[in-house]
C-alpha cells in the first residue's frame, strides 16, 4: 500500500463534503475514468463567497483525500481566495502525497477552479445577476 500521511488517511476514511448540490451555481469536472481518477465539484456562491462545496470522486485513496481537503479549504472563502488553492497547497495541507500520486490524483484544485469558472461564465450570460 502506498505510504499515506495520517492526514490523507483521515480525509480518505472520513471524507468531508461528499455529495452534490441541487441546482448548483457552478459545476467543475476533471479527469477521466480511463486514467483512474475523476472528480466533480459543485459550488453554491453567496456574496462572492463559497457558501457550500460538494464533491464526488472516482479514484484512489489520494484522489478522495484531495477532493475532501479541497472542499474543506475552499468552503467559506471568497472566489478570489479559493482560486489561489493549488495542487501544491492541497498536498501541503495533506502533509504530503506520494510522488507518483501527485499529478494523477491531485486534480481537486483544478476541479474547484473549473466550477468557479463555470459560475462566473453563467453569471456573465445572466447579466451579472447574483443569487
Amino acid at each position: 500500500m502506498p505510504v499515506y500521511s495520517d492526514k490523507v488517511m483521515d480525509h480518505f476514511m472520513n471524507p468531508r463534503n461528499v455529495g452534490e448540490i441541487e441546482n448548483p451555481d457552478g459545476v467543475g469536472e476533471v479527469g477521466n475514468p480511463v486514467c483512474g481518477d475523476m472528480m466533480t465539484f459543485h459550488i453554491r456562491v453567496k456574496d462572492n463567497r463559497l457558501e457550500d462545496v460538494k464533491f464526488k470522486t472516482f479514484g484512489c485513496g489520494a484522489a478522495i483525500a484531495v477532493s475532501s481537503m479541497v472542499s474543506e479549504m475552499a468552503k467559506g472563502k471568497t472566489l478570489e481566495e479559493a482560486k489561489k488553492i493549488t495542487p501544491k497547497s492541497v498536498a501541503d495541507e495533506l502533509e504530503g502525497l506520494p510522488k507518483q500520486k501527485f499529478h494523477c490524483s491531485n486534480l481537486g484544485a483544478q476541479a474547484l477552479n473549473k466550477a468557479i469558472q463555470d459560475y462566473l461564465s453563467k453569471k456573465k450570460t445572466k447579466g451579472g445577476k447574483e443569487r
Partner: protein
Amino acid sequence: MRKVYLDNAATTPLLPEVREAMMPYLGDVFGNPSSLHDWGDGAREAIETARAQVAGLIGAKAEEIIFTGSGTEANNLAVKGLALAQQAKGKHVVVSAIEHFSVLHSAKTLEKWGFEVSEVPVDKYGVVNPEDVPRSLRKDTVLVSIMQANGEVGTIEPIAEIAKITRERGIPFHTDGVATAGTIPVNVGELGVDALSLAGNQFYGPKGVGALWVRKGVRIIPLLDGGIQEGGRRAGTENVPVIVGLGKAAELAQTDVTKRVKRLTPLRDRLLKELSGKIEHLVVTGHPQHRLPGHASFCVEFIEGESMLMLLNSQGIAVSSGSACTSRALKASHVLIAMGIPHELAQGSILFTLGIDNTAEDIDYVLETMPPIVDRLRQMSPLYSKFTKSGKGGK
C-alpha cells in the same frame, strides 16, 4: 478486529514446518555447499535433498532443477537463457499477452538484442486458444513461453495442448508455473513442456527463492557468470536456508496439494457466487471453471480498486487490485486490458486469493464487509451518480 489475509497470490505465509527445517541452516550448518570439508558437505547434502523434493513436486529429475533467487529470476533465465542458446537457429520468440512482467520484459530485452517477439492473444476469460499458437510460429521460432496459470485472474491455460503443437515442430516450450506449482498438481511429463518456473513464496515456502526446471538435454545459457554452481547454469553461492525451505514446502505440497485444492475450491466458489449475488454490476474476471482453486477476482463497476483495497484493509481484510492507481507505473493491468476489459472497468479490479489458513468464517466476513464498502464508494462516485441519473440504475 478480525484479520483475514486474502492476498496469497502476493505471497503465502511460511509454514511452521518449513521454518523449522530452515533453522539449522541459519545456525550451525553454515558451510558453503561448494566446500570439500564436512561443513560444506552438510550444506551440499541439504540443497541436494531440496533439489529432490522440488523435482518430486513436479515429476522431474533432481538434476534438472536449477535454484534461483525468485520466480522472476527463473522466468528471466528461461526466456533469455533458452532463446540465447538457440539463436543460431533463429531469433523469434512467442509469448502470451498476459504473461508476468518477468517474462514480458525479458522478451522486450530479447528484442533489444535483435530477437523478434510475437504475442498470442487471449479470449475474454484470459484463455490462450491453442489454435492461435501455430499462427504465431515461424521457421525461426526458438522459444514459446506461455504461463500455466495467471495470478491476476486465476485462469489456467491449456498447456498440454499447446505443448503438443510446439513438440511437433521441435520448439522449446517454457511455462511459468509460479502460480501453479504447489497450488495445483503439476507434472512436467504430462504437460509436455521443456522448462517450468516456480517460486517458494507461492506455496508456503520462503521468499527470495525459486527454481527453474529444464528438461535434460535442453540447452540454456546462464545469465550470471561466475562459479559452476547449479551445474554451471546459475553461478553464485547457494542461499542454503531458503533452498532448504523451498524443498520442505515442495515436499509438504506434494503430499497435501490435492487436499488443499479440495478445501479451497468450495470456499472460492462461494465467494465468487455470493459476492456476485450481493453486489450489482460486479464482473467476475478470469475463467469461471478453469481457474486456480483459491482465486476469486472481480471488477467492480463505478469505483476504483485502491480505495476498495484501503477500506477493506481498514476492516482487517488484505486483498490486491490491478487498477492503475495501485500499480507503481500507474497503468491498468495489462492482463485485464488483453482480455478486452475496458480501462474504466479495469480500474475497479479487486482480487481475493485464498490460502490454506482461510475458513468459511473468513468468507462470511468478506461477504458481510464488502457490500457496504462498495456502496460507500459508489455514493462518492460521479460515475455512479451519472449511471443512476441516466435511468439505467433503477435505484
